[in-house]
């Protein structure tokens, strides 16, 4: 760094919304040519801080410098002009436009308003090959690209627009392993070109691999920063949560009860292919696999959201296919991997979201008694420690972790026997994660007067599967290829099986 001023310096930034002090004296210093990880639990203030940087919010106090010059953007456009590029979880591409049009969106080479297509193609091509992305098809509409490639288009656009700082917010949350590797290569390339990269992620293993330095936020304050390679992950975690997370995965011995879900040769429209499994009360069965392997489709087909083409499903005494409504009444609940698109009705209140599958619990003859509902739900909010002001508060006002707890509480309120959980801890903070793990384990153990439940859980986060599950099955290309007790798996063997290398344990394959 030498005598050069840092690329970005934020000092004592504070921002308050109503009664919530979102930021309270945050310091952040990012050098040019480094990957700087910004970590913290949900609600710690990472997104607010980045919105201040992007000109969306104006801080109440504090100062910022960009390359040594005072920087205080009044609106997002100004921040963008000064070289701040934000790449959010939700991509902001024009889905119908082609790759090259998206890359040069807003800066198209044109004369008198007429686009000069040849120049546009050449420029886009040059930008992509410089970033090692020459294999992206220039003329394809971006909606036809897989999400990983879409993200790369967006990064290419940032580079073309002369960005000085690229902010990546949870860039890997929807990527398969190969795409993550590619993204990391790309990030290193950006760094070597002298850009500053701010990397926000909940996956601390990734943070450790990709970042040079890190800053930890907690409750709107900077609680630590340092050189990543000098700091072990548990140290970072304890900074984030303010305490040692001694037992993230509460594993106790569980007794396997009777079989409650039996799937035989289940085949969907494309996936799954001839999947068979048996799930017992008191068992947590994990399903590992790459993104796109068909794990989500397996759960959806069982639950009746996707059509069944062949095979048999037995839930307790019920046999055959069923609609989601019938599944809820049979005692099966489903937690979607996509909170925003499918999991929650965000404009509805916490209470309405939790009771939706079993509205009939709220009164006879199709009636609903809001007073009774509030009393019932208040209990669940306490048990799940959902941080909110009121049960009638719309769910969009909650943080990601609390939203996920609402979505999960739905299954507990409906008192289902079989919990189908799709990525139950995706994109949420460590504190909420620990809590959700505890709830899942409690459900499987039973106790408190309830019988043990059965959990079928899909996750891309291997430590979580290994820490939580009794049994892990691996899915690859729509097939369940291996199912073994957790003790017989390691992260390494799980990855091998998921990528189709684990030939000796194949089951259900011709």
């Amino acid at each position: 760094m030498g005598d050069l001023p840092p690329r970005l310096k934020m000092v004592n930034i504070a921002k308050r919304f109503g009664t919530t002090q979102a930021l309270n004296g945050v310091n952040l210093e990012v050098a040019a040519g480094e990957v700087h990880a910004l970590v913290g639990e949900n609600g710690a203030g990472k997104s607010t801080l980045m919105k201040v940087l992007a000109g969306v919010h104006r801080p109440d106090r504090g100062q910022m410098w960009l390359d040594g010059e005072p920087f205080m953007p009044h609106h997002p456009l100004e921040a963008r002009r000064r070289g701040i590029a934000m790449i959010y979880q939700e991509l902001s591409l024009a889905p119908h436009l082609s790759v090259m049009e998206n890359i040069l969106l807003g800066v198209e080479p044109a004369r008198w308003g007429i686009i000069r297509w040849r120049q546009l193609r050449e420029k886009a091509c040059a930008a992509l090959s410089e970033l090692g992305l020459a294999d992206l098809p220039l003329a394809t509409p971006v909606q036809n690209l897989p999400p990983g490639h879409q993200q790369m288009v967006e990064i290419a656009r940032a580079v073309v627009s002369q960005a000085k700082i690229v902010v990546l917010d949870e860039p890997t949350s929807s990527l398969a392993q190969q795409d993550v590797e590619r993204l990391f290569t790309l990030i290193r390339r950006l760094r070597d070109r002298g850009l500053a990269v701010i990397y926000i992620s909940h996956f601390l293993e990734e943070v450790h691999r990709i970042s040079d330095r890190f800053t930890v936020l907690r409750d709107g304050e900077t609680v630590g920063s340092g050189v990543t390679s000098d700091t072990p992950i548990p140290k970072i975690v304890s900074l984030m949560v303010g305490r040692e997370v001694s037992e993230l995965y509460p594993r106790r011995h569980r007794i396997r009860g009777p079989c409650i879900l039996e799937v035989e040769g289940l085949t969907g429209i494309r996936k799954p292919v001839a999947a068979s499994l048996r799930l017992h009360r008191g068992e947590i069965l994990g399903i590992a696999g790459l993104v796109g392997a068909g794990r989500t489709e397996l759960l959806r087909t069982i639950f009746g959201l996707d059509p069944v083409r062949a095979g048999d499903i037995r839930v307790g005494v019920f046999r055959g296919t069923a609609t989601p409504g019938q599944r809820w009444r049979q005692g099966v609940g489903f937690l979607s991997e996509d909170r925003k698109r499918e999991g929650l009705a965000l404009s509805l209140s916490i209470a309405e979201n939790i009771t939706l599958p079993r509205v009939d619990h709220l009164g006879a003859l199709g009636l609903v008694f809001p007073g009774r509902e509030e009393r019932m739900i208040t209990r669940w909010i306490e048990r799940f420690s959902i941080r909110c002001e009121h049960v009638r508060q719309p769910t969009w006002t909650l943080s990601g972790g609390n939203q996920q707890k609402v979505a999960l509480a739905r299954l507990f309120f409906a008192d289902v026997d079989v919990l189908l959980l799709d990525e139950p801890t995706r994109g949420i903070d460590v504190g909420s994660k620990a809590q959700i793990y505890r709830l899942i384990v409690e459900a499987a153990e039973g106790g408190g007067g309830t019988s043990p439940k059965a959990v079928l859980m899909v996750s891309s986060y291997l430590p979580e599967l290994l820490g939580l599950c009794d049994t892990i099955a691996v899915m690859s290309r729509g097939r369940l290829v291996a199912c073994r007790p957790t003790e017989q798996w390691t992260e390494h063997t799980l990855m091998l099986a998921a990528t189709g290398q684990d030939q000796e344990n194949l089951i259900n394959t011709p």
Partner: protein
Amino acid sequence: MWSSPWVTALGRFTALLAVFLFFAVLVEGGKFYTPRNLENILRQSAVYATAALGMTMIIIAGGIDLSVGSMIALSVVTVAWILDYHYTIAGSNGQEETVYLIHQWPVLLPWIALVAGVLVSVLAGFVNGVTVVGLRLVPFIVTLGTMGIFRGLAKGLAQEKDIYPREDTWLTRLMDPTLTSHDPHWRVWILPPGVWILIISAIVAALILRYTKLGRYIFAIGSNEETARLCGVPVGRVKIATYTLGGLFTGLAGLMQFSFIGGIGQPTSAIAYELFVIAAVVIGGGSLMGGQGSILGSVIGALIITILYMGGQQMGWPKWVQETVIGVIIIAAVVIDRLRQQSAT
């Protein structure tokens, strides 16, 4: 953080009061707040407001119904057609004689007309719902089509003329002024019967939305259809029920319109009413994205629209000014609503 429904409702009342006071002050000689004028505002807005009840449910469920104006006309014509139903028989002296059903069943026929007038809209709403769900079409397109179809059927039934029923019945008097009436027996109603129908319907609609499974499902589908499906809500059936229920309220609005225009079956009446009705819902806080809206808000919205319309007339504004002002107010109301919500986040 987020503001409670009561704060929101208070805001809308304030807007209503502001619009009213604006004209009350500006219209000369206090003519705007005479009992007669207040009554006229109520009578005029009752048609919009009643149709807006159904529209509120449809919009909360994430749909839209462009065919309400045509449905109102279809109900109006149906009522008049039944009241005017007649046939010819060979008379005793060999001449043909026209017999009016109303003369044979003077008590029963108005009731038949009432039920048929409402049912025809219920059926129309059902058709909208089934088409949207069964053919998986966007409600905008379906109801744009049925807007033409229902209007065409109304004109066909009336043979492209206004139907003047042979006798006036109590159906004609549903919307007659009460407070300013010279008939003491009529004055005991306090408000025109049509306005009472609106009040009862609004209470029923609000109760349905708040205290029934159906109401809960309507909100859920409009807020996020995928979530509703995941939670086992029978999405298709609920949508059909919503459009059908919308038809019921539109049918009641049709009865009021029949009376309001003087008890004639005019197939060209209520043209462009869908725009007023949708505007009332939107001013009342309904979101065309679904998941949001309230009965009380929509009724206030209908009142605001009517006051603007009538106030503008009484101010002697030219028609073009009136229309422009109403247009601006609709957009402004939605913008204010959004700003309010943004400041709440």
